[in-house]
């Protein structure tokens, strides 16, 4: 009976917020066009909306930061001539790394997303934040490119 009494106590507090989500498949385009920074920002935002475990979010942010550092290093090496501009494989590998990061986000988001779709069903539009973050995500890479060219 005491267990039942505990179950019949209110749980929803005033600052409670509903789950929200982008269409997680669209994050693929964010990863493909924008690379790790916009993917990290929008993927992490989505993961928080869907109450994904903080450990998983932090792990993906850590991987994203490593990937971004690697990308900046490669851009710098291209810019200062250490790597040949015709070396396309390196560019494809960078793209592939972003897609792998997307797969990581998809892996942690799929089940909470399905739960959100069954219980709520609303999708938040991703186009505007995606454009903004793809543009912002290009800024550090442009700075590194400029540093490489000048240095």
């Amino acid at each position, binding site marked *: 009976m005491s267990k039942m009494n505990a179950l*019949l106590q209110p749980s929803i507090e005033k600052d*409670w917020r509903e789950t929200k989500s982008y269409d997680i498949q669209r994050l693929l385009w964010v990863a493909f066009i924008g690379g790790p920074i916009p993917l990290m920002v929008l993927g992490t935002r989505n993961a928080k909306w869907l*109450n994904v475990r903080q450990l998983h979010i932090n792990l993906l942010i850590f991987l994203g930061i490593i990937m971004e550092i690697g990308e900046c290093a490669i851009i710098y090496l291209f810019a200062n001539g250490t790597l040949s501009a015709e070396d396309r494989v390196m560019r494809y590998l960078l793209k592939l790394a972003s*897609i792998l990061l997307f*797969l990581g986000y998809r892996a942690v988001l799929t089940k909470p997303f*399905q739960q959100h779709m*069954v219980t709520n069903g609303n999708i938040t539009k991703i186009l505007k934040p995606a454009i903004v973050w793809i543009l912002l995500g290009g800024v550090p890479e442009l700075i590194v490119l400029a540093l490489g060219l000048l240095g």
Partner: protein
Amino acid sequence: MIKEKETRIIQHYFELDRYEEAVPSIEKLFTNDPLDPDAFYYMAVVHFSKCDYESARKMCEQALYNGFDSVPCYYLIGQAYEEEGNFQGAEEAYLSALELEPENGDILASYGYLMVKVGFEDKALQLLEEARRVAPSSERVNQLILQYYFAKSDQNQQLLYIQKVMESASSEIVVLVNLGFFHALKNEDKAAMEYFRQAFLQDPTNTDLLKILEEYNQLTHPLFFPQRVIKKAGGPAIIYTLFMVIAILLFFLKQYLVLLPFAAIYIVLCIYTWITPFFYKRFLNGKI
């Protein structure tokens, strides 16, 4: 006398889900007694069926004020709040109902499913289990437990509860729609469409089912066969990753004669998947 006769008519329409046709009888109850609590409750049910949740709540509150049985009133108020997205209000109403009748399976299950929506999953599961214990053959309880397992992607439990809903369901449409969702969540679009089609044939006036059918008509069209294969394989990201890995491997092995047609096929596939939705909408939508 009038009350008994009109109440029978109202309940008959409610059983057939033809709520609006009960309105003249409810109005007769109001003419007979403007403060009739039953009439207020029946009118609340009619407003709820028309998705006018605010009016449903107000009518229910009036019914309560005039002495109608509190439990169904609180339950309907809770459902109305839930539909409006006011989950805190819904919780308060469900708890008020459960305070009076803690062993009401339908309300326990509704409160449990509300807890799924707001993310209190342990509590949700305990409430749903309690609901199952007190009302194992209730259609509402089994349906909400099934929805919980739909949300949790637990296919074994989904099958079990589809079976239970089948045993307790009052209409075949509910069973067919559940089977449709079961296959839809497994990405079995053709099987899902077949069940939704059968459900629609049972009730051709159901616009929600028509919308779902139109969507599945597109998904299952032969034009979208490559998209279905890609979806089964894990989505575009997996296909892209596989393509890139193979392409880079072929590049390092200097197998350019294989690499070029391989890359060309991939690019054609990408273009095909991009243009087919536009082509379908422009030339085929509603024509097949």
